[in-house]
């Protein structure tokens, strides 16, 4: 079927108001936040905006019959090219299908459509003293559907884990147009070990199995109090050691973040008024819960971490907490501004390593930056070993691009060598797909086999994951 005919048919299936087909409009769907799509934007054949499960089914059946690739997309905030039509196809923009179908407070769950924005969902849940705990840095813009597709987590994964822990069930439209309910057709329970766990299979599958059209999420009571500790270290190795000390003291903070010397320099360069102390590393601990337990945990952190840190400050006062946290909250931004003619890029930005190897990893990345003559800024979720690296380059200089791609490759290989992973929370998409055989070996064949069960024609988000 030629592309003009596909466009015409889609307009007839969904109505022109739910379809974009003009070439100029399609260009706007050639990118996400990945560096890959900055270098090589790729246009889809068409973009559709389904507003019901039936809409999705109709287009899926049409695509299935005509072997047309299908690419689900949320807010396009991903860093892996996961929502890009690598070789043509129909992009499903699900970001405006954003209903909260039901907040079922008595059963501690909520049912949403995939386009709901994470922060907006939590605003609504907060009215009932509930919250959906995973806390990605992109909370204001990312969709819950995108979080499901990538099994996203974020700053509070130390205590609250990843998206998968909160997904009770999913409605999924398969490429042939069939609809399945994972987690039980009529289930509204929290505990459920009945059947093969297709919910867990779908979460993090990055759209290669089907399109998630409805999500049943477990929600938790919203903590009443929080506190922040900032610890400053003269030796890099003391920072991960202090994290371990904290765990061994029986404390599980909601988040533990690290800024290494490169990030401290970036923050101070961008906003001198923040005036972070010069150090090899700064750790920020966030503790949440009920007020007495927050106070207790804060005191323990102060005592335990204080033994290794040059200084440590603990606060539960909102204004001071905001000041202490400010360095971390602007790091991603500050990184982008360390070079006037440069931009931070999203590539090699999400490796995950064993807790015991975090310091080695940070040192190794710095050395790689020096080797390739590229400034890198390191920060991340040290509490679970997830390191975010921001290489800063001028992306319009081809020679620099070439160098940074080598750097990024080495960062990914480093993660595997250190018994880690190329991605802790951002996903694989197209950019980390080449590492799948190295990371998973023979298991890749079984992954492909599983995909085939759901997607016998291979039309679901091709070119991604493995």
């Amino acid at each position, binding site marked *: 079927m030629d592309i003009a005919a596909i466009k015409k048919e889609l307009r007839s299936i969904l109505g022109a108001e739910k379809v*974009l087909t*003009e070439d*100029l*409009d399609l*260009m*706007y*769907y050639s*990118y*996400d*936040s990945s560096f890959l*799509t*900055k270098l090589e934007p790729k246009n889809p054949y068409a*973009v559709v*905006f389904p507003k019901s499960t039936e809409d999705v089914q109709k287009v899926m059946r049409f695509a299935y019959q005509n072997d047309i690739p299908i690419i689900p997309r949320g*807010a*396009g*905030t991903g860093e892996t090219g996961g929502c890009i039509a690598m070789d043509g196809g129909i992009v499903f*923009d699900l*970001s*405006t299908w954003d209903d909260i179908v039901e907040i079922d407070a008595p059963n501690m769950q909520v049912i949403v459509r995939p386009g709901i*924005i994470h922060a907006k969902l939590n605003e609504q849940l907060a009215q009932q003293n509930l919250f959906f705990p995973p806390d990605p840095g*992109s909370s*204001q*813009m*990312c969709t819950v559907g995108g979080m499901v597709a990538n099994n996203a987590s974020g700053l509070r994964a130390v205590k609250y884990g990843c998206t998968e822990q909160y997904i009770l069930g999913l409605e999924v439209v398969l490429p042939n147009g069939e609809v399945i309910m994972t987690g039980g057709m009529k289930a509204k329970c929290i505990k459920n070990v009945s059947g093969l766990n297709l919910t867990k299979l779908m979460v993090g599958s990055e759209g290669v199995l089907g399109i998630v059209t409805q999500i049943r999420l477990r929600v938790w009571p919203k903590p009443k109090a929080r506190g922040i500790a900032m610890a400053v270290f003269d030796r890099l190795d003391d920072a991960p050691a202090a994290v371990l000390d904290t765990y061994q003291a029986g404390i599980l903070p909601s988040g533990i973040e690290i800024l290494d010397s490169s990030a401290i320099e970036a923050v101070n360069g961008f906003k001198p008024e923040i005036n972070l102390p010069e150090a090899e590393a700064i750790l920020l601990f966030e503790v949440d819960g009920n007020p007495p337990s927050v106070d207790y945990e804060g005191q323990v952190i102060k005592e335990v971490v204080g033994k290794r840190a040059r200084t440590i400050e603990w606060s539960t006062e909102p204004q001071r907490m905001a000041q202490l946290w400010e360095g971390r909250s602007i790091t*991603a*931004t500050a990184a*982008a*501004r360390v070079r*006037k*003619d*440069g*931009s*931070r*890029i*999203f590539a090699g930005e999400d490796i995950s390593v064993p807790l015991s190897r975090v310091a080695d990893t940070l040192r190794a990345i710095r050395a790689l930056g020096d080797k390739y003559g590229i400034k890198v800024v390191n920060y991340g979720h040290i509490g679970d070993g997830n390191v975010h690296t921001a290489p800063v380059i*001028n*992306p*319009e200089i081809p020679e620099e691009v070439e160098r940074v791609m080598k750097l990024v490759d080495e960062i990914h290989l480093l993660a595997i060598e250190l018994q880690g992973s190329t991605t802790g929370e951002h996903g694989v998409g197209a950019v980390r797909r080449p590492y799948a055989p190295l990371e998973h070996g023979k298991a890749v064949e079984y992954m492909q086999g599983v995909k085939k069960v759901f997607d016998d024609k291979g039309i679901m988000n091709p070119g991604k994951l493995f």
Partner: protein
Amino acid sequence: MDFKQLPPVKEQIMKCVRCGKCRSVCPIFAEVGNETVAPRGHVFMVGMLRDGKVEPSLEVVERLTNCLMCETCSINCPSGIDIHELNAAARSYIYDKNPSLSRGFVFDTLWTKPGMLKKSTRMMYTAQKLGLQSLARNLGMMRILPGDLAKAEGILDALPRRTARSVLAEVNPAKGAKQYTIGYFLGCATDLINPSVAIAAVDVLTRNGCEVIIPSAAKCCGLPHIANGKMETARELAAHNVKLFNKYNFDYIITDCASCSSALSLKNMEFLAGGPLNPEEAQAFAAKVMDLTQFLAEKLELTLPPLSVEPIKVTYHDPCHLANAQGIKQAPRDLLKLIPGLELVEMDLANRCCGGSGTFALTHYDLSMKVLDKKMASAMATGAQYIATCCPSCTMQLRYGIKRHNWDAKVIHPVELISLYYQKMAKSA
């Protein structure tokens, strides 16, 4: 200046990491919901234009103009990109390449010659008074107007009989001891549509030790031209105004209009740099420019004696060109709080655009109304009797919103409320 050499085009496009933060705050994206109107989409398209991957065509400009130029994206951009400047530069580039697409007569001729603008406004006033507008409407003549102008004609409220310039003297001496000499930049919209604001401003300033000079040769601030892709004309207007005001020895150059003060600001002068605009002269000029509310609240430190008055409830709408472009949010509120008997009730999302945005309401009527309806819902929820704001474009749009929602409230500039208070004081004395 060559489009590709403009600082934002040269330095900022590459900084966009397409994180999508701009999408989450854009009032137009909230209504349209697809990537073609997302601010990061505009940055992407300006990049395509710069790199010659798309032609400077009507199709591209149609997409770029789906933007209120409210700057919400720019102030929220983690990478510090002036998205609105990129958009304006691209529009200008496209119009330069396609003169037939631009509204040349309106922006290059009518809106650069105060006399002609005044005459045409007089003609509209006469038409309104004689009912010619409804005659034209009934005969279907409004349909021949460009864009959505026919639908949007109601936004232009009944025009006042006299302009501000025809009422106010060029030199207005201070009442009492003179503290400052003020150059008053009387914007086109205040002059022709909202003269009462300028009259109130001169009243309040002169009562507080300011000699107010309103140079009669001043021309438009150029903001409508920037928004409509006429950067060269905007540059010429800026150069004219800079030279004119620099001839005087003003302590401050004050304007009541948020759009004018943002257009006359140093940031915008830097954006317009080049051509006839001398950078040193522009810098000296811009250093003296200050929004009226900021001047009254922070420089004059105005105070008002208490008086037994009827209490009034006021809500405040932040004009984008004041809150976003210049970061001025507190001064207008501080001024309002000074007025005895005035209760300031904050509306939800007071700094969200009203959808007016100069000519946007005229060219994108339906979209503008969707943005307006959200604004009105938050304003009406306050139960205020007045919406105070500091921008003639917002004033027109909000007045239209009040009409559209059959609400019993008035739109007013804070300085008008202060002037009214002085009048009450005079009466009670």
